[in-house]
C-alpha cells in the first residue's frame, strides 16, 4: 500500500457549519497546535473557497487575506492550502493575492462533469510553482468512465492529483470502491477522497478508498464540516493503526486539537440528523442545510420536501438561490389560492 497523505479541511469545510464565522484567533490556535501532527496540508478559508464570501453562500466573518495571513504565520511544517471554485474567485482578485501571502497548495474544484473550467486555474497555479490538485465534487452524479475522463483533463492541465468529493454524502461502499479503483488504475497522478457523513459512512468509505488505491485523504478533525460533517480524521488515523497501516499522523496531537480548539469553534457537534439523511438520500450538497432550514421556517414548508425537490432539480454546489424558489413552489402547491398573498407579504 502506498503512503497516504492527509489534507485537513477542518477550517474550510467546518466553515459551512458555523456560517463562515470562524474567528482569526481560532485559526491561529488551530494551526499552531496542529503543525507538528504530521499532516500534509491544512486548508483554510471560506467553505466554498477563495472569493466565495457572498450573500449567495454566506458572508465570512473575516476576509480571505486575514485568514490566510494568520494561518501562514502559524504553519511551518505543514503546507498551507486553499480551495478555489472557478466561477467564484478570480485570478486577479483572489488567487494572485493568496499566492502573494504565501499559500503552498491550491485545490481547484469543479462539479464532477465540468473539469474544463479548472484549466485556467490549474495552469496558473502550476506555472506559479505551487502544488495544485483537482477536485471533482458531487462525484456520485457521474459514472466512473465519465469521472476518469474529467480527472484526466485535470491531470493534463497539470494537477498533481485528483480528489473525488462525496459532497452529498450519497455514497454506498460499492460506489466508492468502483470509482476510486477505476481512477487509481488509470490515472498517472494520485487519487484522493473527501467524504461526507450523511449516511454515517464517512470513515468507512475513506478506509475503503485507501484500500482501493486512494493516497490522499481529505478529512476534518471531529468531522467538523457541512451538514452531517466529514470523515473524522482522528478516527481514521486510529482505524488505520488497528488495520496495521500506520498513517504517520500523531494521534494524540490531532485528538488534542479537536478537544482544545475545534470543540470551541463548533456551535454544536456534527450530527447525522434526519435532514442529513434526507440530503444524502436525495444526493444534494449538505452545505445547503442551514439555508434549507431557514427557508423551511420562512415559508412554513417541510425542509425534507425542499431537499427532495432540490434533488429532483439536480442542483449543484453554489446554487443556493434555488432553495428559496423551491420553497415558494412548495408553498404554491400547498395553498395555491394564497400564493399572491405570500409573495406580497414578503415585499
Amino acid at each position: 500500500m502506498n503512503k497516504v497523505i492527509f489534507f485537513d479541511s477542518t477550517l474550510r469545510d467546518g466553515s459551512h457549519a458555523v456560517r463562515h464565522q470562524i474567528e482569526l484567533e481560532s485559526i491561529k490556535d488551530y494551526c499552531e497546535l496542529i503543525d507538528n501532527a504530521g499532516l500534509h496540508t491544512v486548508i483554510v478559508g471560506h467553505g466554498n473557497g477563495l472569493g466565495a464570501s457572498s450573500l449567495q453562500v454566506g458572508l465570512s466573518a473575516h476576509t480571505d487575506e486575514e485568514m490566510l495571513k494568520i494561518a501562514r504565520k502559524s504553519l511551518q511544517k505543514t503546507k498551507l492550502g486553499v480551495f478555489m471554485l472557478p466561477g467564484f474567485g478570480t485570478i486577479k482578485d483572489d488567487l494572485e493575492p493568496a499566492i502573494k501571502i504565501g499559500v503552498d497548495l491550491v485545490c481547484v474544484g469543479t462539479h464532477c462533469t465540468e473539469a474544463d473550467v479548472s484549466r485556467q486555474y490549474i495552469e496558473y497555479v502550476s506555472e506559479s510553482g505551487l502544488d495544485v490538485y483537482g477536485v471533482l465534487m458531487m462525484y456520485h452524479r457521474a459514472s466512473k468512465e465519465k469521472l476518469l475522463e474529467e480527472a484526466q483533463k485535470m491531470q493534463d492541465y497539470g494537477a498533481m492529483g485528483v480528489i473525488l468529493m462525496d459532497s452529498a454524502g450519497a455514497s454506498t461502499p460499492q460506489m466508492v470502491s468502483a470509482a476510486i479503483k477505476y481512477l487509481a488504475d488509470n490515472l498517472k497522478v494520485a487519487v484522493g477522497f473527501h467524504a461526507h457523513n450523511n449516511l454515517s459512512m464517512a470513515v468507512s468509505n475513506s478506509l475503503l478508498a485507501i484500500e482501493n488505491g486512494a493516497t490522499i485523504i481529505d478529512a476534518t478533525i471531529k468531522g467538523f464540516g457541512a451538514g452531517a460533517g466529514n470523515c473524522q480524521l482522528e478516527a481514521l488515523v486510529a482505524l488505520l493503526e488497528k488495520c496495521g497501516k500506520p498513517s504517520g499522523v500523531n494521534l494524540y496531537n490531532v485528538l488534542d486539537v479537536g478537544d482544545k480548539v475545534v470543540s470551541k469553534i463548533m456551535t454544536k457537534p456534527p450530527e447525522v440528523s434526519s435532514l442529513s439523511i434526507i440530503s444524502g438520500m436525495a444526493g444534494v450538497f449538505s452545505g445547503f442545510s442551514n439555508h434549507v432550514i431557514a427557508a423551511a421556517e420562512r415559508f412554513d414548508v417541510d425542509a425534507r420536501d425542499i431537499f427532495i425537490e432540490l434533488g429532483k432539480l439536480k442542483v449543484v454546489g453554489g446554487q443556493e438561490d434555488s432553495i428559496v424558489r423551491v420553497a415558494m413552489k412548495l408553498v404554491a402547491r400547498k395553498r395555491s389560492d394564497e400564493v399572491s398573498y405570500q409573495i406580497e407579504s414578503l415585499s
Partner: protein
Amino acid sequence: MISQKIKVGIIGTGNIGTDLLYKIQRSELLECSLFAGRDAESQGIKRAEKMGVHTSHQSIDAIKNEPTICDIVFDATSAKAHIQNAKILKELGKFTIDLTPSRIGKMCIPVINVSEALDLDNVNMVTCGGQASVPIAKAIMDCNPETEYIEVVASISSKSAGPGTRLNIDEYTQTTKDAIKVFSGVPSAKAIIILNPAEPPILMNNTIYAKMKEPNLEKIKARVLEIEAEIKQYVPGYKIALGPIYENGRLVVMIEVTGRGDYLPSYSGNLDIITCAAVKVAEEYAKKILKNHE
C-alpha cells in the same frame, strides 16, 4: 427608401457565432457576408454553408485578404484571440462588436448606453450574465443610491457553455463583476457563475442580491418592470421570475432568460441575451450608416 442591407462578418463559429448567424438572417438591416472560423469541418461552418452563407476557415485573415467583404465585424472567438483580432480590425477601420470577455473596447449594455457605443470602433458586449443583471443592478442603485454591495449569480446549463466560454471562465467572472461596478456605481460587487449539468437543461437564471437596510421597494419594483419591458424589445425571452422581495437584509430579484431556440434549444437564454444585445448594437449602427448615405 431603405432597401440596402449592411454587410456583417462573424468570426468564431462556436455556439455564440452560430446563434448570431441565425439572428442576423432575420434582420431587416443586416446581412451576413462572411462566416469565418479556423476549422473547415466545424458544425457551425457546415450549417452556414447549408444556409447559403459565404464561409471561410481562415478566420480573421478572410477579412484581411478581402477588407471590403463587410462593414461590421462580430468577434465570437476568445478573449485571447480578440487581442490580435482587435488590432487588425482597427487598422481595417471595421466597426467591431466583441462578444468575448476581452474588455478591449468599451463595455456596452444596449439598454444603458447603446448610443454612446456607436461612436466607437470597438464595443465589448460584457458577458451574458452582465447583459442580464447589470441593468437591474443599475436600477437598484438609481432607487437606493446608498446600497453598498451588489452580487449577481448566473446559473447556466452546461450544454449551453461552449469550450470558448469555459476557457474564459476567469475573464467572464471578472468582467461581469467589473461591469456591475462600472455601470451601477455600487462600491463593492461580486459575480458568481454556476454551470449546471442537469437534464433536462435548466433555463438561464440570474439572481441579483443587494445588501441594504431600507429598500424603496415600490420604486425599485416600478423601475425593474420598466427595464424588463425595455430589454424585452431586443431580448424577447427576458423575464423577471421573482421579486423584488426583501428578506434577511437583502433585496432579491431573479431573472430568467428563455432563448428563441435558434441554434441551441430555448434553455440557452445565455446565448440569446448576448447575441441579441450584439445584434441590437449592429442594427443601431446600420441605421446610422444608412441615414448618412441618404
